[in-house]
């Protein structure tokens, strides 16, 4: 998917007036947010488990080269193949080659954000191979030719009526007058249409929530079971995963799984968690004959040890976006690439560059809720601030902002001057703003007041008030 993150401001402005989107996003509070709170309350050890999950990932990252080697050893020993892909284009080429060698015509896909990151669907299509998304949400956006708007609920921006209209347009083999009012009817129809695709596909591509070094195992977590049909029916299974998905042992996987579903959907655990190790064994009646893992770097090794290192702990649960007031107002598409919300605001500039995605770290009110709910305790606001600083240093900050900041800094460093200026300005503003108690516009600060009012000061500066208070006591 081609990044559109430069257009964040325009996208966000449009999103704010999109009524179906508002309705769709309105459901997050009663759904994901309330369910997470319930799951957390239901497990007394939840906060401690967050600390442990963080520690597991920190240990893994500090030994990542060694664990990856161990993981590869075990995959190979179980009859699978590991392909190392430094860039997105290396990964695409490796996947296409496996598909071509298998003579594949159609490829079923489980939900994979790495697949979106490397834009594998377009690439396969250009080579004459048809990718079929099988996660219901991914299917809904594939038929609309849209990008996911949420990492765990890719079609969260759509309403039932939109889905109905799409199905009537697409599933023309079914009678037009069929009833498609309830979500259950829509789900049943998708199940029926996709079942044939599952059985016909030559290759299945899934992502991985975890890679386990102890056993050479890839783990997927789903509620639908689509990922499982994708990996156990076709002749070839390809796992695409980024290198930081690794954990050492099954015990470490347990710890991450205990916080993942609870943080994501608020379930105690997802319906299906599947551990696959290599291709079908001699005694197996089913399973793929070939098992490939494409390990993607695509910028991760550059984050390692940098000020964005902590972001590599992310387990893609989506809690940060579910709790983000900015995401809740503008939705995921405004962010313009694969990863939206607070995690996207940090990850996107790290992966595609600050020039492309410089607006995203500004899409924050710095309320801190994302960090408060992140199961991996990733300091998201701090990292967004790092990006703002970098942007400033690189000169991406508009000239006017800089001039303003410089003037303020000049005065602020000179105590007497600052006092004199603010002592003059505040009573003045208090007089002009007395009637309504707020300013709709202020000269030279139009950018700020265009979207909000500034409360008028009460008449004295903070320092004056402080001195008075001190004098009294």
């Amino acid at each position: 998917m081609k990044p559109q993150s430069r257009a964040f401001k325009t996208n966000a402005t449009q999103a704010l007036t999109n009524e179906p989107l508002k309705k769709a996003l309105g459901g997050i509070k009663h759904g994901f947010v309330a369910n997470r709170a319930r799951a957390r309350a239901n497990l007394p050890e939840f906060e401690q488990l967050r600390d442990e999950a963080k520690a597991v990932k920190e240990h893994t990252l500090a030994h990542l080269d060694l664990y990856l080697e161990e993981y590869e050893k075990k995959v190979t020993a179980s009859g699978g193949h590991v392909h190392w892909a430094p860039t997105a284009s290396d990964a695409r080429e490796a996947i296409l080659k496996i598909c071509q060698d298998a003579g594949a015509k159609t490829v079923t896909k489980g939900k994979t954000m790495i697949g979106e990151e490397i834009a594998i669907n377009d690439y396969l299509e250009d080579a004459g191979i048809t990718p079929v998304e099988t996660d219901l949400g991914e299917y809904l956006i594939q038929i609309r030719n849209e990008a996911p708007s949420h990492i765990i609920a890719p079609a969260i921006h759509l309403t039932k009526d939109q889905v109905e209209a799409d199905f009537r347009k697409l599933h023309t083999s079914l009678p037009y007058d069929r009833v498609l009012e309830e979500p259950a009817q829509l789900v049943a129809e998708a199940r029926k249409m996709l079942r044939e695709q599952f059985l016909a596909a030559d290759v299945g591509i899934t992502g991985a929530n975890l890679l386990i070094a102890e056993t050479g195992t890839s783990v997927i977590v789903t509620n639908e079971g689509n990922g499982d049909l994708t990996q156990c029916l076709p002749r070839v299974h390809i796992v695409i995963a980024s290198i930081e998905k690794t954990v050492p042992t099954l015990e470490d996987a347990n710890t991450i799984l205990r916080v993942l579903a609870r943080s994501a959907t608020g379930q105690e655990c997802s319906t299906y968690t599947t551990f696959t190790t290599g291709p079908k064994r001699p005694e197996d009646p089913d399973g793929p004959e070939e098992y490939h893992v494409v390990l993607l770097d695509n910028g991760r090794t550059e984050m390692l040890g940098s000020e964005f290192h902590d972001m590599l702990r992310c387990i893609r649960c989506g809690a940060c976006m579910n709790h983000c007031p900015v995401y809740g107002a503008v939705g995921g598409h405004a962010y313009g690439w694969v990863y939206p919300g607070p995690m996207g605001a940090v990850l996107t500039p790290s992966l595609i560059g600050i020039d492309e995605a410089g607006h995203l770290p500004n899409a924050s009110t710095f309320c801190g809720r994302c960090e408060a709910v992140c199961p991996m305790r990733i300091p998201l606001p701090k990292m967004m601030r790092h990006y703002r600083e970098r942007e400033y240093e690189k000169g991406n900050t508009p000239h006017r902002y800089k001039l303003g900041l410089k003037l303020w800094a000049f005065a602020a460093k000179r105590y007497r001057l600052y006092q004199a200026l603010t002592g003059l300005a505040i009573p003045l503003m208090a007089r002009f703003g007395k009637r309504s108690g707020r300013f709709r516009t202020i000269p030279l600060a139009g950018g700020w007041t265009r979207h909000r009012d500034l409360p008028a000061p009460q008449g004295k500066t903070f320092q004056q008030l402080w001195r008075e208070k001190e004098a009294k006591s």
Partner: protein
Amino acid sequence: MSGAEDRQSILDAIRSALHPKGDDTARKQAVRERLTSHPSNLVPRRGKASGDARLKLFIETLEGQSAKVSRAKSANDIPDIVAAYLRESNLPAEFRTGSDELFDRIPWDKTPALTRHQGRGQGSDAVTMSRARSAAAETGTLFLTSGEENPTTLNFLPDTHIMIISKQDILGSYEDAWNALRDIYGARTLPRAVNLVSGPSRTADIEQIIVMGAHGPRRLHVIIVG
């Protein structure tokens, strides 16, 4: 770049980012140690429940996740439970299983109306049956292993999935369940697929409304034996 060079370039990039001091002996030792001793992290208290409390937790959690749970005193009771369930649910009195010896021990002819087919799952299967290897009560989760005894396709293709588990195989935590599999398959070895199943298939992708039976089974019926 060739495959070997790509591999080396990623590993080198990691090493230079981590810039470990001195030689790698300590790091290597830490990794070897962790992989062989696989130390347990924190296990929630509920994962340590035993006896009746554990069984109760397992059943209640699983039912909370929309599965149906029945109890059978012994394998002899299974045919009647299955026949009654299929009748109540308006389902055909036939199902498919793998070759697990448990299914041979069950006296199916006791209930002549039932027909048992054998083999891997088919797209047309309405009802299948599998035996779970172990279970973790902490989240009402059953562990199924791939192989001829219980082919993986049986777990995902049918509309209705019936799972049999022995009471003694219901353990407290994920840690316990993995250790049970380590006892069977050996250290650092797993069967091709281990499916952790905690209810019937579902989706909430349309307006966040939960609908059962997205792609996998719409109904899950767990029979506890013993």
